[in-house]
């Protein structure tokens, strides 16, 4: 399943790249793209594990950029 997640307060392009790399290394992530310009994250993961993978991804993102607001 591929889902587009809106982000807010992603101010640092470096952080966007770091977050993308970190999430890509997660187990279960087929593909991830973090777009600093459009403030969106596109996460691709198998349907049955999607929610779990998304939760992990959010945790990592918050760790790298604690000010990041993840909408949904």
């Amino acid at each position, binding site marked *: 399943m591929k889902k587009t997640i809106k982000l807010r307060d992603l*101010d640092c392009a470096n952080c966007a790249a770091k977050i993308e790399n970190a999430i890509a290394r997660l187990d279960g992530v087929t593909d991830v793209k973090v*777009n600093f310009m459009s403030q969106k994250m596109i996460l691709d993961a198998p349907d049955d594990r999607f929610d779990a993978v998304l939760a992990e991804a959010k945790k990592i993102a918050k760790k790298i950029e604690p000010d990041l607001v993840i909408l949904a």
Partner: protein
Amino acid sequence: MSKKEKKHLWRILISIALFVPGFMFHNRENISLFSGTFQAPVWGYLELPFFVIIYAIIGWDILWRSIRNISKGQVFDENFLMSVATVGAFCLGEYAEGVAVMLFYQVGEWFQSYSVSRSRRSIADLMDIRPDYANVMRNGTLVQVDPEEVLVGDIIVVKPGERIPLDGVVEEGRSALDTSALTGESVPRDVSVGENVISGCINQTGLLTIKVSKEFGQSTVAKILELVENASDKKSKSENFITRFARYYTPTVVFAAVALAILPPIVMGQPFVIWVERALIFLVVSCPCALVISIPLSFFGGIGGASKSGVLVKGSNYLEMLANTEIVVFDKTGTLTKGNFVVNEVRAQNMSEKKLVELAAYAEDYSNHPIAVSIRKAYGKKVDTSRISEIEEIAGHGVKAIIDGNEVLAGNERLMKLKNIPHENTAPGGTVVYLAVNGQYAGYILIADEIKPDSPQAILDLKAAGIKQTVMLTGDAYAVGKKVAAQLNLDKAYTEMLPADKVEQMEKLMNQRSDKGLLAFVGDGINDAPVLARADIGIAMGGLGSDAAIEAADIVIMTDEPSKIATVMKISKKTLRIVRQNIVFSLAVKGAVLVLTTFGLATMWSGVLADVGVSVIAILNAMRALNVS
């Protein structure tokens, strides 16, 4: 301005308001205004708490973030550097300096955040083709709903001045549409009953009742928006380079800073303090923010600027590649020419001209090729398909059909040769469809294709832009191809190409590329798929709503105008110029400040300027990519 930005701005303004008197107070010995008053030593003790308060107002979040990030394992970030630098200044007794640097830094940060938001918003505004509502006919009444709730087959009404929310077919009404948001074209497009309209256009004059043909997610507007937004996901080489560079740059400068703080004092016996201060400045300059933000922003701006002109670029990498294009290969029909073949001349033997056209129209009944369409148009009447008993298509040659029991052949010279039918040689000037009935030559129909009005200028512009070779590939007859090539001043033209020939010729042309040169193919969609895929850059004439073209190509020209190729190349070159300017500028300034710092010629101010100031300038410069001159 967002709430966050507003709050930030307030903190900055308050801090400045407090800092100015504080600074004057700090230098009260040198200011005659204060002579006499405030000279007692007790006032001196107030300085520290006063500046600490200002520092707290302006810098608390930086300190907090650096502590929090360290606890999460992230030590060396901007917050840490600024905290260390300014707290260090305080420890050295330079209170005003510490506050000033933090204040300066926050001002820069604010500008950076503001300009990025501004850029995002202006690009979003450019792409403000998203319709907010649709007027749907439900149970006889008109209801205003979210476009996403409208189903295929629903009837919607678009009043004058409103934006068409979904793709569909006009059921009732006639009007003129403003397509400029999608195509950059200022000339309105007339539509009436039975015509297709696409979402995103503004209805100008008349009321339109439209039957929806695609749901919102599949509509042209939604697709375009998605394409442009996601275009920046396809990173250009420059962006990839900067990301890799940044990863090595920061640790390198940090190590250099540590070395700077420790080695010279030990080796030269100088006090640590001076060198630690210099090391701190080093750290401040080490952030690669300017590059990491401004480069993607430049490409984002370039893509936005291209969309404004009616060209969809599907990736930052394609925008970058355009600048290195050496060879441009064109398809003829529909790309350089309008593809609206018109019957020019009919010459029949042993039958009336009308009969010849009739036979041709019947033979070409199943074909959607522009040639067939024009013949049917010339015929004008409806084809009675009961008279056709068999149609066989011979690829690259023509068609064989049994009409009224007679075997009719309609096709090009190759077909006549294949079937050994002697035919007359025609003077060049158009595409010729030869006809033979029952093995006997019956005559020919001459069809001419109109060259698009902007094609000649398009080729000239490309040559002026430095394209080394302009080539045309076409399945059309030699005479026609030659004529068009001459009229357009093309370097080379390959005619009578079968689809497989086109791919082969493409390969040959690909081998003619120089080291860094690239080849772009311009076609009009489906039938050019293999060639579009093989080329370095595939450019399709989008035509309003041509799904296949939008899918297959890397770059889509929404208006079908070849002249837009040169336009988007200009945008590409401009974007790359800006990117290069930013890289050179940022590295040069940072490098200079680093060198000056090593020799003690730079202060914390220059450190912050080299980081934040450079960032802001780079961002502002990046925004220039949006302007299409």
